């Protein structure tokens, strides 16, 4: 059935060797445990790295760039060991830091050309690539103006452009939506998604909002106080953790009919608008697809037309918050 298919076909599992692999990665700053025993794989496409302030996101990125030495553990990036392959990693990786890093008296155009050259591109290749990536990130005539006069949105675009200038195989984007208004945020997220899919560059993107990354990521890693809270394909994430939303043809009467029937079969239901919101299924119904089949069967038994059966995305935030509360 089409409605269920839309749930079950969402998968972000990766094939091929991991782009990033960490094993027992640990970083202590004195008494601050920024990362604790992190073992995780990152594949191609877009991977979201989510965590509250201080969760260790930026620390992880700096370790993977070879800028910070881990206290313990190992990691490889694109097959290079961070211990002695730092230079090789930095040759094929792009980095967009979370903080301001743009000199105010230089134009984005000049700056991106220079940064491309610092990554090893020749003068004319750097100019060509710079014009290309500035166009892709959406900086037009303003690219010739000093960056000191840029809005936050334009600065974020310039920062992104320098990260892409040398056509890396992987980019680390540290909070690219930081400080952006909702429209600019949507633009940036769409761009991030395009980098992963159309550009074919693997992306590790951080945010403290799970909701926004879940829209664009194939895979989500949640860090909590330096610990790995979970790492899963976005689809799994929704299925396993999320509650479900069901909508049937008809009015509130039909809605309640379905809700009551489902409640009798062991699911916790409550109305939400025209839909029935179903809490995460109890253990006996939690197995893959069981809840979906049950809902479909119940709807069929009642002769109700199933309009919609989808994960309740709002619930993702709750998972995240529960994790945060543990810290």
């Amino acid at each position, binding site marked *: 059935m089409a409605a269920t298919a839309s749930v079950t076909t969402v998968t972000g599992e990766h094939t091929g060797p991991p782009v990033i692999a960490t094993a027992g990665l640990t970083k202590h700053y004195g008494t601050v445990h920024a990362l604790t025993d992190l073992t995780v794989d990152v594949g191609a496409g877009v991977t979201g790295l989510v965590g509250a302030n201080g969760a260790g996101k930026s620390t992880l990125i700096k370790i993977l760039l070879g800028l910070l030495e881990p206290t313990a553990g190992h990691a490889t990036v694109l097959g290079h060991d961070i211990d002695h392959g730092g230079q090789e990693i930095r040759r094929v990786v792009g980095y967009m*830091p979370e903080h301001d*890093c743009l*000199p105010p008296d230089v134009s984005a155009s000049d700056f991106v050309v220079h940064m491309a*050259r*610092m*990554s*090893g*591109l020749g003068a004319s290749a750097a100019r060509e690539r710079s014009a290309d990536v500035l166009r892709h990130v959406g900086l037009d005539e303003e690219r010739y103006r000093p960056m000191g006069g840029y809005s936050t949105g334009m600065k974020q675009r310039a920062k992104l452009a320098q990260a892409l200038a040398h056509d890396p195989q992987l980019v680390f984007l540290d909070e690219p939506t930081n400080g952006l208004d909702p429209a600019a945020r949507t633009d940036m997220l769409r761009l991030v998604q395009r980098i992963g899919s159309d550009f*074919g560059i693997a992306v590790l993107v951080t945010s403290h909002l799970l909701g926004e990354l879940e829209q664009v990521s194939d895979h989500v890693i949640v860090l909590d106080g330096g610990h790995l809270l979970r790492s899963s394909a976005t689809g799994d994430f929704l299925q396993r953790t999320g509650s479900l939303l069901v909508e049937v043809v008809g009015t509130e009467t039909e809605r309640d009919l379905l809700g009551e029937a489902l409640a009798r079969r062991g699911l916790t239901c409550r109305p939400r608008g025209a839909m029935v919101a179903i809490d995460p299924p109890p253990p006996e119904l939690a197995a893959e697809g069981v809840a979906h089949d049950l809902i479909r069967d119940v709807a069929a038994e009642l002769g109700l037309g199933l309009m919609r059966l989808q994960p309740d995305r709002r619930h993702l935030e709750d998972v995240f918050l529960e994790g945060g509360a543990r810290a």
Partner: protein
Amino acid sequence: MPEAPRSGVIHDLGYRRYDGPRDGTATIARTLFVTGLRHAYGLGRSGRSKVMPFLLLGMSLLPAAVVVGFVVLTGLRSLPVSYAAYTNQTQLLVSLFAASQAPVLFSRDLRHRSIVLYLARPLPATVFALVRWASLAVAMWLFTALPTVLLYLGAMLAGLDKSDQTTDALKALVLQAGLAALIAGVTGLISSVSLRRGFAVVGSVMALIVLSGVVTAVQNIASAEGEDPASVGVGLVSPWSLHNGLANAWGAGLDTPAPVDGAWVPAYVLVALLLIGGCLLGLVARFRKVGTR
């Protein structure tokens, strides 16, 4: 909800991959060196940033041009000032050039945090620091060498003894190279620590101009009191007195309050080298540290 077309968002052309050649570390370092050297003179930067370096350069060339005109027109049989002494007499201009331009190469990247973008690229922090120093040192050396070259051309034009002039000019150029290495190290280190341009400039002025003034005064007093060893010893503590002392010892035509000779010569060389080495270690440590933040 129909979205208004946002300016600047053009998605029609596809992304192109780059599979052309990529430079190795040495080539990237050379690119950084050349860019830094140009930036020290304001080249490739805003028009305003060219004013200071070229004004100072013009001021340090002007007396040399006057000397050249004078020698050529009057047929004088020697230059009225030696090459090395000329460098010392333009001390203030040279020091101001270093004080004003070192922050361009050593403060800006740290202050605006663009350093993280450099360090996330192939060049290691150590190489970055050394290349930056090399750019400033060569910029400094050119600043002092140009008047020397001008004087030398004038001397040739006036028909002065070619071999004498060549020897003296070459000695001056070598001494200037040492001076440039010293001054670039000192002002670079100061600028990489005090990121506010004003503080960096004041710090460099203190370390070069004020210190040099104090040292010269003490040297003069000591030699007037007949304490020559003290006079020469005090000369170890400032870049300018090190340069002048070595020029004096080498017979490059520069008088110091007391002659630098004997065991003082290796001492001067050693201190100069240690000072350069110490500054480089400091710079490398500084840039390695910022990479981790």
